[in-house]
């Protein structure tokens, strides 16, 4: 077995080790699943980690209600095929209960509102570890995060006082009420994820491939022209373009990129040559220099 010869395989071995540590050290872990490429990769890694036994924890999707329909359809099919348990909690419910207030105006997004729904769900199910698909190359506040990242009982991240993390030793000891966010693919880059999806022949939602879509332009970014979800001024003209998405989040905060990549191989090629970062298409990160760090302090995953 020459599994350790390639970089991508050593990342795979590292991630599997981390996922097993979660299952071993925690009582009620959950895998946060958005239907995006990173969490799909996580699911594959989890399946591998426990084979031939089943994945010993459920998946949970915090549904903003503004997801791309392709993603939801894909999510349900994947869960069905793998025989996994899926928990869904809806941001809409948090809005209806008056716990969060829907943003209005040009940049309204439900992305930030997810945090409340997530923290409520963690409390409801008493989850002590939440596995997430965040990567350190995504964003500079992310680049600072540990693999086992302890959150207090308000879900908050204390960025100045993180636990030392040495060698392979992951300390999962926490107090009641605290939880740990676990990032098994911390050391992967966007290109690594795509290369792995290609190598493993993993199925992903069609939204990641180039397709014709109604869009409009604002602030140099391509927004999805879904009138239900994304606020658009009358003067912002709807056009049809050949686009794909590099990151799949809430529709209201995820911009598309012009692309003709219709296969994984072409996507990998495109990413390799891209001069724009993945998060360059995340509208919510552009809000301020520290947008991500602030969200994380509040409990964002």
């Amino acid at each position, binding site marked *: 077995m020459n599994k350790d010869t390639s970089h991508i395989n050593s990342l795979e071995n590292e991630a599997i080790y981390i996922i097993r540590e979660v299952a071993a050290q925690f009582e009620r872990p959950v895998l946060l699943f958005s239907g995006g490429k990173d969490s799909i990769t996580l699911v594959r890694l989890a399946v591998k980690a426990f084979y031939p036994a089943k994945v010993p924890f459920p998946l949970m999707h915090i549904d903003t209600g503004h997801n791309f329909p392709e993603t939801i359809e894909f999510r349900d099919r994947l869960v069905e095929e793998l025989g996994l348990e899926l928990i869904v909690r809806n941001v809409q419910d948090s809005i209806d209960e008056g716990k969060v207030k829907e943003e209005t105006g040009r940049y309204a997004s439900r992305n930030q509102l997810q945090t409340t729904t997530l923290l409520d769900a963690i409390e409801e199910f008493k989850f002590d570890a939440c596995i997430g698909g965040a990567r350190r190359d995504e964003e500079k506040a992310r680049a600072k995060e540990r693999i086992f990242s302890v959150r207090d009982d308000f879900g908050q991240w204390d960025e100045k006082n993180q636990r030392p993390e040495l060698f392979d030793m992951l300390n999962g000891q926490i107090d009641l009420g605290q939880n740990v966010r676990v990032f098994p693919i911390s050391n992967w880059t966007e290109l690594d994820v795509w290369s792995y999806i290609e190598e493993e022949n993993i199925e992903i939602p069609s939204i990641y491939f180039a397709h014709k879509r109604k869009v409009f332009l604002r602030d140099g970014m391509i927004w999805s022209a879904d009138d239900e979800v994304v606020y658009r001024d009358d003067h912002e003209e709807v056009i049809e373009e050949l686009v794909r998405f590099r990151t799949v989040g809430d529709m209201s905060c995820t911009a598309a990129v012009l692309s003709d990549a219709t296969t994984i191989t072409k996507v990998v090629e495109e990413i390799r040559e891209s*001069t724009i970062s993945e998060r360059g298409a995340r509208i919510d990160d552009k809000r301020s220099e520290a947008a991500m760090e602030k969200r994380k302090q509040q409990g964002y995953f």
Partner: protein
Amino acid sequence: MEVLKIATAGSVDDGKSTLIGRILYDTKSLTTDKLEAIKKTSKQRGYDYLDFSLATDGLVAEREQGITIDVAHIYFSTKKKSYIIADTPGHVEYTRNMVTGASTSQASIILIDARKGVIEQTNRHFFINNLLRIKDIVVAINKMDLVDYSEEVYNKIKADFEELMSKRDYQDQKITFIPVSALKGDNVVHKSDKMSWYKGQALLEHLEQLNKADIYNVGTPRFPVQYVIRPKTEEFHDFRGYAGKVYGGNLSVGDEVIVLPSKTRSKIKDIYFYNEKYETASRRSSVTITLEDDINVSRGDMIVKENDIPTIDKQFTANVCWMDAEHLTPGTKYVVQHGVNKVLAKVDRINHKIHPDYSGIEKDVTELKVNDIASVTFKLNKPIFYDQFKNHRTNGSFILIDTQSNNTVGAGFIQ
């Protein structure tokens, strides 16, 4: 592609973040949007240069104070290699984060401010690199532009550092001196024409040709059992697999093994990686092993080759790097996490404190304060199976966990 993990070390304002930003910029690894953000913020702050540290100092407090607090992991690739750089803090108070960053690195860059020369922090950083047994070290003498690119200054610092080197106990280290200016880009990615007296390579050129010194190469096979896999499905009704990561060397089907602590003998029956079977499990692979005999194996147990077993003992002595604000005192109990195994440990005695400036040891020490390094003897409530750190990186290291706060409060290297 080969990947090289590098840790940076240096004192405050030595320019670590700037150096990394410079490498990213000169290798065209900064994407357009990130570069735009750096340009915009540099301009807002009234700088007449691009502040590359903005690329790595990701926390508000870091940008506010202009210092690095926690490790940032930076990723970039050249045609030859992929790199992961752990940009670690220089502040004494954040030494624990420096150890965090350096523990998984194969090479290290120690920065020295050419105007200041070798200072106490340099000693500490070199000492920690030595303690962690990092093989390739680059001493980057930075800010050469501020000392008129003087060969004399460079030689003086080099000589001072060589004196430090003569005091270390790990002689296999390869140390390379490179004069640079991270701000101006001299000898970082491109060879500078301002220092014709320097005949060596630019920093990146040097890193490109480093052989990946495999830090996990040392030692013999150790297989700590992470998780017991029992599917209990119709198809795999009697399947009992031991999931874990292989450290040290390879394990193969048919190997005669011993399971610790029960010392039961068996043979490796199958090696699975997902749904495929393999003849050999190589180092660092996260496999699942089945044994010929139906024996009771749990998490924390260790599978080793019959002819090569580690020390099994209820006490050990280790060099401890103390990382907590609360002091370590004899008699106190901690959880020792050794690989995936956890045992309760009592501090038996502090043998002596080690000064990271190589000025010797201090006996009659009653407590350890944050960032102290000392030789400590522990007694355990049950035996662990360990090797000396110098012989086995994984099986010779551990962390200490505070039983009250659950924090990781120390790192240890077994002697």
